[in-house]
């Protein structure tokens, strides 16, 4: 076996090891890589920033622990932005695994801004049958959620006194790792003309751009990069900003591996052709 053939059949575990090193080492190297803010993220920030004090934003926590590294930092960044603008926040969860994550995110961030539960924010909890829930909230939030996560009836929550349905909500921000974005676009956006923004995993971003182009979404916070951009906009560096610095190095290594793999493959093809001519 020639050297090129050996390189062409390189053990995949060596590539995994190189990627692992490329991800671990940058954690210990201080770097000041710039983070450029893309228009879809800027749009979300500008929309929330322009909301008057006391406006209501609904946040959908529709992801589980498996996508937390991407989605949790952007949730926290958007919550911090809302809380810093004195915007009231309603949290909902349509993904069973997100129920406690949402509670933690809302509570821990609220403590930073001295936000009070039931006065400044409400977490409604998890509910099955997402389509019915989204449609139901278009008529009356109390239909799918008669009580909040703590079991308090909505009628007894001061913040919910003047909030009945989407007419009283300025924006819905859906943090999603799956289908929930489609449901919000279809049932809250198309049917009730609710303004929507999305925070999603990197895998989903390219599929959502058509909705951005048509104005069905006001903006998209895509993956860890989107989260880092939002942290940059609110001037609070968090896990996403640190993660993006590591990610930049990892991406360079992956690009080099792709170039290396293709170069070896092309050289091997040439070598085989030459050997074929000789024989």
């Amino acid at each position, binding site marked *: 076996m020639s050297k090129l053939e050996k390189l062409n059949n390189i053990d995949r575990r060596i590539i995994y090891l190189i990627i692992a090193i490329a991800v671990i080492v940058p954690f210990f190297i201080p770097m000041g890589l710039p983070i450029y803010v893309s228009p879809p993220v800027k749009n979300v920030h500008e929309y929330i920033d322009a909301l008057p004090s006391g406006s209501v934003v609904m946040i959908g926590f529709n992801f589980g622990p498996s996508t937390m590294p991407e989605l949790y930092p952007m949730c926290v960044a958007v919550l911090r932005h809302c809380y810093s603008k004195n915007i009231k926040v309603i949290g909902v969860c349509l993904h069973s695994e997100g129920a406690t994550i949402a509670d933690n995110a809302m509570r821990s961030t609220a403590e930073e801004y001295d936000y009070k539960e039931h006065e400044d924010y409400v977490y409604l909890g998890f509910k099955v049958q997402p389509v019915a829930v989204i449609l139901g909230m278009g008529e009356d939030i109390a239909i799918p959620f008669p009580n909040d996560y703590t079991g308090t009836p909505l009628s007894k929550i001061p913040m919910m006194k003047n909030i009945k349905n989407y007419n009283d909500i300025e924006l819905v921000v859906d943090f999603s790792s799956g289908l929930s974005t489609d449901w919000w676009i279809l049932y809250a956006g198309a049917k009730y003309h609710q303004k929507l923004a999305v925070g999603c995993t*990197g895998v989903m971003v390219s599929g959502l751009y058509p909705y951005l182009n048509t104005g069905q979404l006001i903006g998209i916070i895509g993956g860890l990069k989107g989260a880092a951009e939002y942290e940059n906009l609110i001037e609070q560096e968090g896990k996403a900003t640190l993660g993006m610095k590591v990610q930049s190095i990892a991406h360079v290594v992956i690009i080099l591996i792709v170039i290396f793999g293709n170069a070896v493959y092309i050289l091997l093809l040439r070598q085989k052709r030459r050997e074929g001519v000789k024989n």
Partner: protein
Amino acid sequence: MTLIGLWIGAALTLCIYSFLYKDNPFFKFAEHLFVGVSAGYLLTITFHDNFMPYIYEPIKSIFTDGKYGEIQIIIPTALGLMMFMQFTHKYGWMVRLPFAFMMGYYAGASIAPNMQADIYEQIRGTAMPFGSLDSVSVIVNAIIILIGVICTLLYFFFSKEHKGILGGISKVGIIYLMIGFGAAFGYTVMSRISLLIGRIDFLLNLPLIRSFLPQ
């Protein structure tokens, strides 16, 4: 307790990543544990957050507090119970009733919003930029999108053989599709690396490991 939880999380993370070397019992254990815990969690949260407050409590209140207005809950509850009849041969036919109800509901609820969000709005989004051609970049983008939509749609037109003009247009459609797949793949790589970063960050921030590492 939190510390124990952190170390269990770390151990399970390493069990899962051990699959990258080769399939092994530690990976299988972590995988099965994950499936079991997820199913148990879903069952528990559905029971406590949905079954108890919206079925059990209202039905109980009919008998204890005389809240006869809650009697309507019996209809969806009966439909839900019929779903379990598929496990019996004799009464299996009863499952058709809740399924018919669900299909009717979802078809009715979905058709109009689907048409609105995915057909009308997308057509409007393709044509709309031609109404405000106020800069070179807008004109170029509008033309690129229009060509892409037409060529990609024609690529999926199979009633005529892809030869001649249709063949040429289809090839342009394939190029658009490949660019789309490339963008999606790039984002997927970013996404997967983000998850790896999340796990590495978690492992490096474990109290014992952190104390050994440079700050």
